């Protein structure tokens, strides 16, 4: 402590203290303000460059029209709102299906993820080594690429694979039944890919769960189920809400699962449609207007969901 030199630090503050009383606070506040702006600058610039401008570009592109007599993929600026009408008329099915699949995947991920999170956070309490190992296992799938994990499902669910053979043997699947190239495979893959996004936020909120509250539930003659329903679940709701959002939003826009595990009749998702419109057909306006619609629809759905669950302040 004695080594602290008094000089420079006080020297900086000195002009302020020397000035008339009211000015000192102003200067300090202005300095803090300048520092705050300085600190916000990199983030703001980043957002402007990589979010605001691209979103404007997307909105602009969604209204483009083809250049008359132009080549494939050539468009010019216009205000052609009709793009939205045709895009929705042509692709409302994949759009609706995306939300349906995302909903199923979110429900599946919740059913799988909640028990995992509960096991690690509540049952594993006091055993940090076990908790750590289980958490690594939850995150482990992320060590491999998303695409590889999806391709692995193709092998697991293949017609000549053990799963399908076993289901045939048990007569769960009819002899000509299959699992790949079905909507089942797409939903399974979506669920699996997003389970960690569900499990981790729930783990985080269950980890803070006060065991005395659960005990109090027991003291008040609540059975385990009632205690769970009235104490544990409500206290873990912030985790459930963030988990469902982190699963639902990317799942609705996912295009890898559907393109690798889907078929050509009833599994196309909107992300896949946007991808093919953009890269294969070079139909940028349709791809852009579908992206805008997807963004708006998700924003509305998420807004409603958050209001309904009443957890705005918890996010």
């Amino acid at each position: 402590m004695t080594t602290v030199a008094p000089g420079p630090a006080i020297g900086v503050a000195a002009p302020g203290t020397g000035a008339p009383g009211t000015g000192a606070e102003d200067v300090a506040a202005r300095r803090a303000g300048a520092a705050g702006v300085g600190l916000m600058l990199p983030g703001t610039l980043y957002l402007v460059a990589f979010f605001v401008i691209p979103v404007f570009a997307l909105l602009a592109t969604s209204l483009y029209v083809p250049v008359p007599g132009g080549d494939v993929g050539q468009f010019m600026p216009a205000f052609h709102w009709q793009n939205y009408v045709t895009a929705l008329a042509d692709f409302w099915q994949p759009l609706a299906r995306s939300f349906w699949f995302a909903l199923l995947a979110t429900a599946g991920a919740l059913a799988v993820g909640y028990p995992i999170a509960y096991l690690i956070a509540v049952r594993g309490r006091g055993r940090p080594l076990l908790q750590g190992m289980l958490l690594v296992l939850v995150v482990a799938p992320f060590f491999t690429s998303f695409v590889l994990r999806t391709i692995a499902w193709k092998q697991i669910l293949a017609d000549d694979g053990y799963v399908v053979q076993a289901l045939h043997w048990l007569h769960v699947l009819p002899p000509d039944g299959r699992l790949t190239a079905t909507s089942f495979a797409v939903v399974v893959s979506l669920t699996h890919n997003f389970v960690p996004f569900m499990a981790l936020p729930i783990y985080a909120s269950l980890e803070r769960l006060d065991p005395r509250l659960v005990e109090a539930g027991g003291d008040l003659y609540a059975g385990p189920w009632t205690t769970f329903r009235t104490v544990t679940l409500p206290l873990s709701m912030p985790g459930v809400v963030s988990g469902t959002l982190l699963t639902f939003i990317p799942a609705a826009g996912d295009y890898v699962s559907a393109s690798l595990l889907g078929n050509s009749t009833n599994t196309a998702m909107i992300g896949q449609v946007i991808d093919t419109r953009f890269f294969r057909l070079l139909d940028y306006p349709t791809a852009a207007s579908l992206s805008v619609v997807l963004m708006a629809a998700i924003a509305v759905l998420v807004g409603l969901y958050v209001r309904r669950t009443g957890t705005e302040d918890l996010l």
Partner: protein
Amino acid sequence: MSNPRRRPPADPMVRALIQQARGAAAARRASAGSAGLSRRQFLTVGAGVAGTAALLAACGTGGAPGASSSAAPSPAADVSDAEKLVRWANWTLYLDQNDAGTEYPTLNAFTKQTGIDVEYLEDIEDNDTFYGKVSGQLANGDDIGYDIVTPTDWMAGRMIRLGYAQELDLANIPNAANLVSTLRDVDYDEGRKHALTWQSGFGGLAWDKAKVPGGMQSLDDLWKPELAGKVEVLSEMHDTIGLIMLSQGVDPAGDWGDAEYDAAIELLREKITSGHIRQVKGNSYTQDLVSGDCWACIGWSGDITGLNYEADNRFDFVVPEAGGTLWSDEMLIPVGATHKKNAETLMNYYYEPEVAAQVAAWVNYVTPVDGAREVMEKSDPELAADTNIFPDDETLAKVHVFRTLTPAEETKYNGQYLEVIGA
């Protein structure tokens, strides 16, 4: 500073400056814009919401989706003599490798012989995706980082049409005379001024010999009831529709129109909605053949030869009786390429029959170089007799090059196709 794209906020300004520098040319094509302004000037002015939005669009997307240059960009300066380098973008597993898969023997020999280093990049995974990535830069005449690209014929045709390919100096490529006669006269590159074929191949029928004991001769065999749900077709429109057209007695190389296309697409639609066709696949159909999800499919010749090496001749491939498709991947020099002469030297090297034979022995596709078969007969007579690598006249008489579509047809037919395959 050499690459303004790295600083997106400054991009519109830089673009505007470049456009002003090119102003004289732009003014001459003023008819495109409203009120006597060219589109580029219209962008530069940036007045009003539309202008601003367009400017942002052009900036944010690097010019790719929105850009619509109506004039061809001009080629870059050639620094070949100062910089002994050539950069080549190709498809995966498309050049001979040593057994460890770490070296390319023919490339090493090329560098030894000419002193030119080769940056060989397996960067092309899909024609459309690749084009989507580079088209914005090509339209500006920028260097896309490759001196040779290898798109498929129809995509090569689009790039040539738009002026994105430099004209070849055949004086540097005397071996171009070795190009097989079937590929000399092609509609996507009249007079063969811009492109030389890297490899070509057939679209035809492939099947698992154990699952389809009777084998296949025609496309109708693919529609047999016992194969329901076990059939796949290619997401590459030219091959799938080409084969269906041929089975319906239409030559895809000939003069066909909407009626013929619609007839083919309706057959495909019926087979997809009935569930007879399980999935529509790109390169990954080979995985489904191996996993047993697919028993018979429309596939590519070289893939099956390659699969059979690993799977003990489990599969077979045939060009159907009614005919198959002949496609080719074309080497061309993009407009911004800075090592044109080195690229031409490389093309010349791969058109030597000995080198071509070495490549063919590894990639198993149809070699476009005359004389390669004679070389192969000495080294590997069995491979030289494989008509999927060195087709005989009978096979060649059965295959057809899908005719080049006009831009309007391309948009329309591809759109219909993508809609039917549910992509």
